[in-house]
């Protein structure tokens, strides 16, 4: 057993040992880059040195088999160097220009998907879903798969006015960056949780449970030595369930997903923005959620058709106005779209100027 070598608090290995030599040499001295194709770019250093990046789609959920396979490829063409991106793509770091075409060929042969660079859809930031999380209202990996099957060409070839960042989170904890994505899917509940009072007594701290509720819907139920929920106030966030599992929020009949749009995090042109509600609900329809996929596609393509070059989805919508967004996409406006949370006041229209 290797247990003798157990250490603590050593932190991650130093990044330097993982950098290809050309990067070590030109670290901090890159001059410009050029996007050569939807999945290949070159960065040129002040020294004239170059590094080619070949980006490949990843389902993020990888078996060790696949990791070994990409390692083999990286050994062959990248001297054993590669990286992952902040959106979970794989980047092969090719120092030798000649290898670019070769690695491309091999990747294609092996069925890898090259793309995601430039003004297009890149990989979908997402979360655990039914694969691993107790909190999930839907499955994240499945939604990503069916979405990207449909939007495949927007990753590999087609151009859009700007980058479109997609995300999926399986509950309102939003472990993905759903709250600031161009288009995102978030799992939602729609009914007040059921309470297993006996288990509450055993497993939960009542004050913590009460405090966990953002809308103050939970109050003590002294008779039952448990808690009760005011249905009028509950917004089904599931926060109570996280701190007190016997308050079960799951309800296959009423759980599903919402689509939010228009978020961004970069500061280019306009301030970072929160995503806003586009469509409040779809029933879970696994394995391929066709209604959700076509709704996302509709939004994406309406944007592609109407936005100016370099406009992100949120910028486009703010320019044309949300009333026009609903008209162009044909999405129905419902009571759910009207904010009723803390900042509702700031969302109501305070101007006589708007479009029909």
């Amino acid at each position: 057993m290797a247990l003798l070598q157990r250490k603590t608090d050593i932190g991650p290995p130093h990044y330097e040992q993982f950098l290809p030599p050309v990067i070590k040499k030109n670290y901090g001295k890159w001059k410009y880059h050029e996007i050569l194709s939807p999945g290949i770019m070159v960065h040129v250093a002040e020294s004239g040195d170059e590094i080619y990046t070949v980006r490949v789609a990843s389902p993020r959920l990888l078996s060790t088999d696949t990791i070994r396979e990409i390692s083999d490829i990286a050994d062959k063409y990248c001297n054993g160097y590669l990286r992952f991106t902040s959106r979970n793509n794989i980047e092969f770091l090719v120092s030798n220009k000649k290898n670019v075409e070769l690695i491309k060929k091999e990747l294609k042969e092996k069925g890898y998907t090259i793309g995601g660079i430039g003004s297009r859809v890149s990989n979908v930031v997402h979360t655990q879903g039914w694969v691993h999380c107790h909190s999930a209202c839907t499955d994240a990996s499945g939604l990503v798969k069916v979405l990207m099957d449909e939007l495949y060409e927007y990753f590999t070839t087609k151009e859009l006015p700007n980058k479109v960042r997609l995300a999926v989170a399986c509950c309102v904890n939003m472990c993905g960056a759903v709250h600031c994505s161009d288009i995102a899917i978030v799992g939602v509940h729609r009914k007040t949780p059921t309470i297993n009072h006996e288990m509450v007594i055993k497993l939960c701290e009542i004050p913590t449970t009460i405090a966990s509720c953002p809308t103050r819907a939970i109050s003590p139920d002294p008779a039952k030595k448990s808690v009760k929920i005011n249905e009028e106030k509950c917004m089904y966030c599931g926060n109570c369930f996280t701190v007190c599992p016997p308050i079960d929020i799951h309800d296959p009949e009423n759980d599903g997903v919402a689509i939010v749009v228009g978020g961004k995090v970069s500061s280019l042109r306009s301030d970072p923005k929160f995503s806003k509600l586009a469509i409040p609900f779809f029933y879970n329809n696994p394995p391929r959620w066709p209604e959700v996929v076509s709704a996302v596609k509709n939004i994406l393509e309406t944007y592609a058709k109407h936005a100016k070059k370099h406009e992100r989805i949120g910028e486009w919508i703010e320019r044309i106005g949300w009333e026009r967004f609903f008209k162009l996409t044909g999405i129905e406006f419902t009571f759910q779209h009207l904010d009723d949370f803390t900042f509702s006041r700031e969302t109501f229209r305070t101007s006589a100027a708007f479009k029909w």
Partner: protein
Amino acid sequence: MAKKYETPLLDELEKGPWPSFVKEFKKAAKRSEIASDGLGQLEKSYRTKRGYWKHGGIVGVLGYGGGVIGRYSSLPEEFPGVAHNHTVRINQPSGWFYTTKALREICDIWDKYGSGLTNFHGSTGDMILLGTRTENLEPIFSELTSRGWDLGGSGSAMRTPSCCVGPARCEWSNIDTLDITYSITQEFQDELHRPAFPYKFKIKTAGCAVDCIASIARADLSIIGTWKGNIKIDQAEVKRYAKNGMDIQAEIVDMCPTECISYDKKEGLTINNEECNRCMHCIAKMNKALRPGDIKGATLLVGSKAPIVVGAMLSWVIVPFIELKPPYQELKDLTRKMIEWWDENGRARERIGEVIESKGMRPFLEYIGVPPMPQQVKAPRRDPFFFWAKTDLK
């Protein structure tokens, strides 16, 4: 291992061009019961439209309070392989650079002790090993640490810091994102491994306002590189963009949020740098012609998070400009002060941004020793209910 479950629904997700996570599952399922029972339970979820996982409780390794997410099936009889299904978070190297040697090392350990399934990477940045039993945690930990790897954060603790690729492969980085992240991660090892905060605390570092790590949306402390001084213009390259068909007026000039660029075919591009807010648009869209100015530093922003409980927040500018040179002492000291203040004022499960919002920006700034500056706000307050401290009155 023989195929254990029929998965007609999940099989549908092997179809289509995008890489299939079901295929990954099936690969691992060939060798691992965790993976194969995981697949079986997932198929059931697809059939019944609900998850079957129980909230984890506390599992972990000796001396650490985090780094492992405990997870149990609520159907252990039906799917014994995932009766335990814990996640091990490994602190990734800055910028997610790897050698294949390192990757294989991780794979070897994981094939030995776990499901063979991973997430490259988790949303916070960790390498995630997905699915193992409680009794394997200590061995995995020993194997990892003996080879130079350590666990990432979880629970009410410092979380694994992460950063954009930065100076390693990007021409715009104003700071050494990789080094800062490494240095901070080392600095806060204790806080990372032994949850003692009111709630989680995340740090993310981006080399510029493009923010390829989404730090402004999901980090309690967002460090974003920036500069002072003039944007450098290569007029020859400007001409080349024009020649190659770029509509500079429409794509650059008209899209500059501060209206500080002008363009003339003969004169080329002119930037009124006084008015530039360094949004990065022009630089990003004409990267061969334009480059950031010379005096490098960063903006520190605080408070972003996901919606629960008080609604989603973006990070707020606290320190408009700070120089960041190793050993980043000022940054570390400031970070400690921020955390200290949060710790003193926050209730359990309150993020730092929530505490600042409820206690007010002023006490926070006063505690960390930062003066009020117009850069910290989009606009000054509107309703005239100003608060006056005794010291403000003469």
